[in-house]
């Protein structure tokens, strides 16, 4: 497991924070007035009952979904270029972006090339970390649910990025794979990386801060096109 520290080393150690964030989905304020701050090596666990907005918040943090109010900052500078911000992060959701016709290693090396540069040794280590080495030449269509999810997780290790956003990363994983994930997270944080995890289960970060989205219920219901009421609700 010594290799993993190497895999996760991040080029920009930094801080990531949000202030006064609000988000509307389907005409309803999912959360509002939300603040968070994360520094190098830190971890944040998103908790809350189903529908409390964990997935939504992760997509806001990734810059995919625009927030209705508030700002996010990277190294204390407000994020205004979503593309630049995107290069600092990896997002893992339940959509696994795996092509069934390509083999396991082809799938992985595509993302590696896209994000960084081809590096076969690194690829092998990433496969190893999630016990996929012996499946490397398998077409991905043959994988089971858990194996697919492990392949998605292996993407975290093929190119360095300081911020990991993980949406229920334990889904479908067996015990050995859960341990592998926990180790990968530890190594990433040890190298100065940051991790945000949304999960219902025993978490993969023991010492992280917790952000409970359940506290935002009962939600303020506002008219979807009325910007002022968002401000008012904050």
């Amino acid at each position, binding site marked *: 497991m010594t290799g993993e520290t190497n895999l996760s080393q991040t080029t920009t150690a930094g801080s990531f924070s949000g202030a006064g964030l609000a988000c509307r989905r389907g005409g309803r304020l999912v959360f509002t007035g939300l603040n968070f701050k994360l520094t190098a090596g830190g971890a944040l666990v998103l908790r809350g009952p189903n529908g409390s907005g964990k997935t939504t918040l992760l997509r806001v943090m990734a810059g995919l979904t625009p927030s209705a109010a508030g700002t996010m900052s990277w190294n204390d500078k407000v994020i205004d270029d979503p593309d630049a911000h995107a290069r600092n992060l990896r997002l893992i959701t339940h959509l696994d972006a795996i092509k*069934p*016709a390509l083999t396991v290693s082809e799938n992985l090396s595509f993302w590696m090339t896209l994000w960084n540069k081809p590096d076969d040794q690194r690829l092998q280590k990433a496969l190893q970390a999630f*016990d996929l080495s*012996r*499946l490397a*030449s*398998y*077409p991905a*269509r043959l994988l089971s649910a858990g194996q697919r999810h492990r392949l998605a997780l292996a993407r975290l290790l093929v190119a360095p990025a300081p911020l990991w956003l993980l949406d229920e990363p334990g889904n479908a994983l*067996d015990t*050995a794979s859960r341990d592998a994930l926990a180790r990968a997270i530890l190594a990433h944080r040890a190298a100065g990386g940051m991790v945000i995890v949304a999960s219902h289960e025993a978490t993969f970060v023991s010492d992280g801060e917790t952000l409970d989205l359940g506290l935002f219920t009962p939600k303020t219901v506002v008219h979807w096109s009325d910007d002022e009421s968002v401000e008012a609700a904050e």
Partner: protein
Amino acid sequence: MHRFANPTQFMRIANAIFPWAAGLAVVLFVFGLPIALITSPADYQQGDTVRILYLHVPAAIMAELIYYAMAAGSAAFLIWRHPMANLVAKASAPMGAMFTALCLICGMLWGEPMWGTFWVWDARLTSTLIMFFFYLGYLALGDAFEDPERGDRASAILALVGVVNVPIIKFSVNWWNTLHQPASLSLTKSNMTGDMLLPLFLMLGAYSFFYLAVLIIRVRSELLAAKIRNARMSQIAGHEAAQPAE
């Protein structure tokens, strides 16, 4: 039935047949082609172009026969889940498509001197073209799935659906054609003599044995490919056993 479904059994029979089929195909081509293309009498009306007939007509007959063989194999596969029947159907399809293409190309080349055009929308031509599309559809569907086993089942169903349609097409296209344009193929039929029948049958025989020989080669290589796939799988499974960690 299950005896025959066993690939080992099947290959034993096929291997015994193969030298005969290949040999006969070669012999018949060697004797048939010169007779068909050189020594047979020229037609008093069409001249030497009549020789295309010896390539064209057997190809048309083969194309149809192979379609029925393919449908029969597919039916056996769907009903009794015979993997070997499916292999035969799958191996036949490209051959059928090839013979259909040969029939079409020879026909078009013949049409130019005979009718002054490469193509007319005649009943026979049209139904041949449609059969060609059925072959293409079968091949494309079988290849379109991530999971090859799904492709096998889906294309087998398609082959059966297509066989229902072939007579309908033949009938309906005739009906359509009589509205617009008389059939064009009756003129040579009457002066088909013994001199013409000999090369015709030689070529038909050559095509048939050629089909049989290639069929055996294709089935054999499919089986080998499956063996190689499985060898790779077993390697992977072996590793899995060695690694109790998972």
